[in-house]
């Protein structure tokens, strides 16, 4: 994991910026002061228009209010699993500034009337040990906190899957309604927030302005890894912060494996904040000398394997579109299959218990759009030469060996 130090608007990683190492509790207190009073926190969060930084980009204040409106004794879950294989920002944050996350969880718990905090990380993650150590350093937290180790599967850290895991030991998503905010752990209102969101809350509560966010930048850039950049940055600025493009780019995959392909250089001007491609800042730069269809095919196969196999349209739909894209990448498909693929992309979204199939369909649909010319050529049996090369964005970890509980 590479986390680069930058001059400028850094706040979340400020401690690490100065010392180059993780902040222990004493250093955290010296940098940021003690845990502030949570009074008026939700209003402050609303005013700052903070959106969730885990993927969905949901307005945090609305979620806080929903949980606070329920009965007392709820739970706050800090989601530090970061199941998205190409994303590293949550790991970076938990490594170098875990106490901001713990602070945020404490403050959020007080604000919504929760009586317990659970910090979730993947069970095979070395981060689990360092987070446990950091927790042990803390003194004076009003709400009891414990670390929960979750099976390392892609959808295991979906909101309802985390709740399900705590309740039943099986980390699979559940049907909504009810949402965790209404009824979650042990039937109580449960706030599930990304660790970066909670860290942002910890800064807001101390009266800081939110000026920065963490992004993971990958692909054909000079310095791939986690960067803290101004919230008003554009995609182009994010690439610049990451050392600039190493080759001419054709597209960027924004928002992770279930995200959105955007054409480059046109998308260079998109603001990360305004353009709501779902909050999660993960930007993968695809160079011209690569095949977007082959990349999509690789990712779709991964997403299909990571289905929790609970809902038909996901269980069957994802392997089907993965197969379609594999054939398309190899130049072994035709207009009829393309037509059938488009039909499939129309019926898969919205018919699963979680957003997993929606993400896969979104990835596929935006690929068909952004790589339209290539799609046309491939469908005529003329695949580009890059389809056979090693993929840029193949997932490094293999989750398949892990079970669900």
């Amino acid at each position, binding site marked *: 994991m590479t986390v680069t130090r930058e001059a400028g608007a850094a706040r979340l990683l400020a401690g690490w910026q100065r010392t180059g190492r993780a902040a222990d509790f004493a250093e955290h207190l010296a940098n940021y002061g003690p845990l502030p009073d949570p009074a008026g926190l939700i209003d402050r969060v609303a005013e700052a228009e903070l959106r969730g930084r885990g993927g969905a980009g949901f307005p945090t204040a609305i979620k806080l209010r929903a949980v606070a409106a329920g009965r007392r004794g709820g739970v706050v879950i800090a989601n530090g699993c970061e199941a998205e294989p190409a994303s590293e920002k949550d790991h970076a944050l938990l490594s170098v500034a875990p106490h901001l996350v713990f602070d945020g969880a404490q403050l959020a718990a007080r604000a919504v009337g929760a009586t317990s905090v659970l910090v979730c990380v993947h069970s095979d993650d070395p981060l689990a040990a360092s987070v446990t150590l950091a927790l042990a350093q803390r003194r004076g937290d009003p709400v009891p906190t414990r670390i929960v180790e979750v099976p390392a599967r892609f959808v295991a850290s979906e909101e309802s899957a985390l709740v399900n895991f705590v309740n039943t030991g099986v980390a699979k998503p559940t049907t909504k309604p009810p949402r965790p905010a209404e009824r979650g752990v042990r039937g109580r209102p449960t706030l599930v927030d990304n660790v970066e969101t909670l860290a942002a809350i910890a800064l807001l509560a101390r009266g800081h302005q939110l000026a920065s966010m963490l992004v993971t930048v990958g692909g054909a850039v000079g310095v791939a890894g986690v960067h803290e950049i101004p919230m008003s940055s554009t995609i182009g600025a994010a690439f610049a912060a990451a050392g600039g493009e190493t080759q001419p780019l054709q597209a960027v995959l924004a928002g992770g494996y279930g995200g959105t392909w955007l054409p480059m250089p046109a998308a260079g001007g998109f603001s990360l904040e305004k353009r709501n491609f779902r909050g999660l800042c993960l930007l993968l730069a695809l160079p011209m000398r690569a095949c977007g269809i082959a990349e999509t095919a690789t990712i779709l196969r991964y997403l299909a394997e990571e289905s929790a196999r*609970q809902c038909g349209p996901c269980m069957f739909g994802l392997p089907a579109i993965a197969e379609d894209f594999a054939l398309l990448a190899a130049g072994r498909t035709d207009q009829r299959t393309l037509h059938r693929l488009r039909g499939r992309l129309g019926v898969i979204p919205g018919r699963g218990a979680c957003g997993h199939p929606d993400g896969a369909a979104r990835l596929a649909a935006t690929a068909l759009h952004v790589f339209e010319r290539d799609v046309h050529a491939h469908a005529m049996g003329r695949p580009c030469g890059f389809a056979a090369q090693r993929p840029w964005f193949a997932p490094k970890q293999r989750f398949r060996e892990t079970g669900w509980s």
Partner: protein
Amino acid sequence: MNTQALWYLSRGTGVVALLLLTGALVLGMLNAGRLTSERWPRFTISAIHRNVSLLSLVFLVIHIVSSIIDPYAGIRWLDAVVPFVSSYRSFWLGLGALSGDLMLAVLITSLLRPRINYRVWRAIHWLSYAVWPIALVHGIGTGITDDHVVWVLISDVVCGLAVLVALWWRLGSTHPDTEARTR
């Protein structure tokens, strides 16, 4: 009604109830195994399954009432619901009461299906696989000394074959959804 007529009524309706129960069980298995065709869509098989089980309940009730009204064996109302307390062939009759109790549980929960927890309904519905053999054995045990027991035995063989064939089919039937979930 004279005692002999009641006796035959009880016997007859018992056999018919078992035949209908067999039909219900077979249809249930066909439904669970997702048998379907143009002329026999799923909702039809499902509806016939339901109607046949209700009809078997009707015959069961007549079977029970006629046995109680008939003074010959001294069977009480209590013996129909509490197994093994009768003075007449307590074990074999008791099996009938047991089977009837289980069947009542299945029927009541099925009538209330949308209102009760699905897993609870399903667990109780599985008891149907116990209702049938217990009823079959009850029929043999209480009818074995009868003059016309051969008819009981013939119908038992027919019922048994039907259930075995359906069970064999059911165990061999599969569906992509089930396979995908259990991978």
